[in-house]
């Protein structure tokens, strides 16, 4: 019955709500562009994060509209232009707030999980 810690396919809704803080976390370290962001996420998840890559861009657009990130077209080494994103001060605050929310939800779930386990063990 213990499935915690074993990677399963993550539901669409959960991905949708966690993509923004994950992107903010990456951008907190360095500015990046869409393709690199997706590769980074996939790599860290050990290839388990299965999202349609293109759907990251509408998320980035939404984040840009909310002024969590800002974008700039820059010329890359291969001569092509790439849209680079970097986190804003507002984005930093948002990230802190979202991490707090995730912690809260995680703690809540942990607490709710305990009685269930004890019930099961009876």
């Amino acid at each position, binding site marked *: 019955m213990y499935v915690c810690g074993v990677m399963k396919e993550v539901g669409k809704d959960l991905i949708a709500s966690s993509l923004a803080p994950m992107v903010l976390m990456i951008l907190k370290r360095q500015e990046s562009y869409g393709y690199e962001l997706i590769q980074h996420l996939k790599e860290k998840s050990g290839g388990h994060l299965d999202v349609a890559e293109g759907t990251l861009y509408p998320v980035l657009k939404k984040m840009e509209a909310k002024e969590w990130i800002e974008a700039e077209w820059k010329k890359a080494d291969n001569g*092509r232009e790439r849209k680079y994103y970097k986190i804003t001060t507002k984005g930093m605050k948002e990230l802190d707030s979202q991490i707090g929310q995730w912690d809260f939800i995680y703690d809540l779930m942990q607490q709710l999980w305990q009685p269930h386990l004890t019930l099961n063990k009876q």
Partner: protein
Amino acid sequence: MATSFNIEQAVEKHIAAIASEGNLSPDDIKELAGHLIDSVTILTKQGLSDEEAFMVATKRLGTQQQLVKEYEKVNPTMKVNRIWGHLIFGFATLTGLWGFGKALLIFTYGSALKNGNVTQLSLFWVAAVHLALCLAIGLVIYHKRAIAAFLQRKLQRRPLLMLIIAILLMTMASLAQNFVERNTENDISFFALNKFQSPYVEFTFYLLLSTLFIGLVSMFFTVKNPENATLKRMFSRPSIWFLLVAGFATELLAASTRVLPPHNAAPIAGLYFGAIYFIGAFAISYYNRIGVFKYLCWYGILGLALEMGVGIQADLSRINAGYPIMTPYFVFGLLAGLAGGYIVGRNTKQTVAIVS
């Protein structure tokens, strides 16, 4: 290994297909295309061929529906703006082209009628301009797919620039029209036909009007078909509505042959009249294997009704004025044209053998 696969083109085509359905800004298109190129580049470095890499990269990017749905959420007003952009572009371009066409005709008529005397050469020139305009309309209809694709691409890339060009075109057409109107003799208008007293000028003008009408009709009836509007696509398995409208256009064109000489020679007028129907009936019989008789009935019914109704009325007044009657010749011409087109169309098919 040499391959004809062009990644840049394939990427552009793939993203354009998504953009045509969804609310993507030029910036979004550029970003998605860049992503695909990056993805393909990495995959080819891992040993995949260009085609394979492209297939994998597009699959990873997501389906058209997925992307369209997600972009719709972040660019909700985009589609509305684009529709308005297209409407304004279409309006300005068509008004501009119509204005230039009118300016050209007024200029042509004005220079042909200068000093009050019309020479044979100027008549020839006017008829040639009519025919050239017919040809231009025909070419636009034939290449409608390529033109639409080109305009859509340009409108997606640089919507503002395209709108400015269209509005400039409209303004210039209006200025050109004003200019020629001011610099030609008085009361030379769009319909200065009767001043020429030439059946050829008149007939080519009617031909131009009919081409315009048939052009609009064909655009309407091939709207669901994204390919070029060819005769085959219009005439093979036609709808009843198409046949009625095409029949009406044929009747207008056939009726306009009455201006051609010799005048007061009813049998020859009937022959011209029938010849126009012959062409239409030939096209229907040539492009269809079954149901031709039914198609021809729908095609000819409006013309027959008009000839019988309006024609007999006109004949009654002709009898009163002491002129010979015409209707029997026209009705006979119509029926003979349909029958002739049917017979020749069927027999041509047996030798040419069209396999669709």
